[in-house]
């Protein structure tokens, strides 16, 4: 597909714009088909407001409005719920795209290209970034303990590659990430002075504390 689809936005704050821009740019499912715009003609609009005046954006005829709502708020149209989940926006955009174009996209190789890159945090992220999603905190924790691959992150967190990649891109955008091509380390870190708990210890403790790992 040559022409990009335009997702207009209204009333979003900068961290939200950055987040959504990152989702559009990094999602392998969206295959880089969408770009975020704040003026001109667009194929969908993301907004908090129910107003019909979108200027300087121009909504194409029949193009949908995606309302930003609080999770739990009832809404019958296209909606993107806060706290944001990348997969939900991606699903919505693919649905909109499929209305315009008959075929859905094949996954490209973008995700697999990332599989051998190793990442590590340079410093603990600003609270404002971590507040964008409730699961960002733990992803930052994982990345703060030595180098990790995308696969490591998905294994540790239980989240999808898209979600973890979106987080990595956000960290990179704010210059918080060291990246290098390489092979993931094979041997676990040797920590002789630490009483390393057995793995089922965590599941039992989480259960005891009422924590839901998912």
């Amino acid at each position, binding site marked *: 597909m040559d022409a990009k689809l335009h997702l207009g936005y209204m009333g979003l704050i900068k961290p939200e714009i950055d987040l959504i821009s990152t989702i559009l740019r990094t999602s392998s499912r969206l295959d880089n088909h969408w770009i975020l715009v704040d003026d001109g003609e667009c194929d969908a609009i993301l907004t908090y407001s129910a107003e019909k005046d979108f200027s300087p954006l121009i909504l194409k005829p029949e193009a949908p409005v995606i309302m930003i709502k609080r999770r739990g708020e009832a809404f019958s149209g296209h909606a993107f719920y806060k706290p944001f989940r990348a997969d939900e926006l991606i699903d919505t955009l693919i649905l909109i795209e499929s209305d315009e174009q008959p075929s859905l996209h094949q996954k490209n190789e973008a995700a697999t290209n990332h599989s051998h890159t190793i990442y590590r*945090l*340079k*410093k*603990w*992220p*600003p*609270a404002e970034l971590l507040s964008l999603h409730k699961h960002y*905190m*733990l992803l*930052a*924790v*994982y*990345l*703060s*303990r*030595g180098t*990790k691959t995308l696969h*490591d992150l998905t*294994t*540790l967190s239980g989240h999808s590659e898209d979600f973890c990649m979106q987080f990595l891109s956000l960290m990179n955008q704010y210059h918080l990430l060291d990246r290098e091509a390489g092979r993931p380390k094979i041997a*676990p*870190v040797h*920590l*002789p*002075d*630490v*009483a*390393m*708990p*057995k*793995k*089922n*210890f*965590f599941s*039992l*403790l*989480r*259960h*005891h*504390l*009422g*924590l839901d790992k998912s």
Partner: protein
Amino acid sequence: MNEYKLVFTGTTGAGKTTAINAVSETPTIKTDVANTDASLDKALTTVGLDFGQISLTNGDRIRLFGTPGQTRFDFMWKILAKDAFGIIILIDNSRADPLADMDLYLTGFLKELETIPCVIGIGRSEKNPTPGIDDFSIRLAQRNLILPVIPVDVRRAQDVILLIDILMAQTEADMI
């Protein structure tokens, strides 16, 4: 049956005893005495240690230790931290210099922090927003440390549980 140790540390009045109470299945065993420090708004203060416990269904136990806050008892910090699976540093943001307080404990546990997971909980930050959470991260970065820093109210069990969850996540990350 395995036993694990979790250490709560921080300045006097930061809420170590309260935090342990929030998650311990048994009433915290305290070694409190009357507070003689007029600058502290509390009647009792811990001079030895606090102790609480969590028992798991397989018989494993997590011993929760609160260190004495006063620096004159800092010899006990290392004793308590030996073989711990995590250290929780609680900071009272209403004090005169919370960043210096954090420095004190980072220095006190410097060797342990090379291997033991650690998280920083900032208390009373809603009424005392300065320094901000990010200021603590910046100070940590100046010391070449990357540790999670989160605002907490240790009276809420969920906040204490989040601190413990972060320690577990750090340990899991070390295992992979």
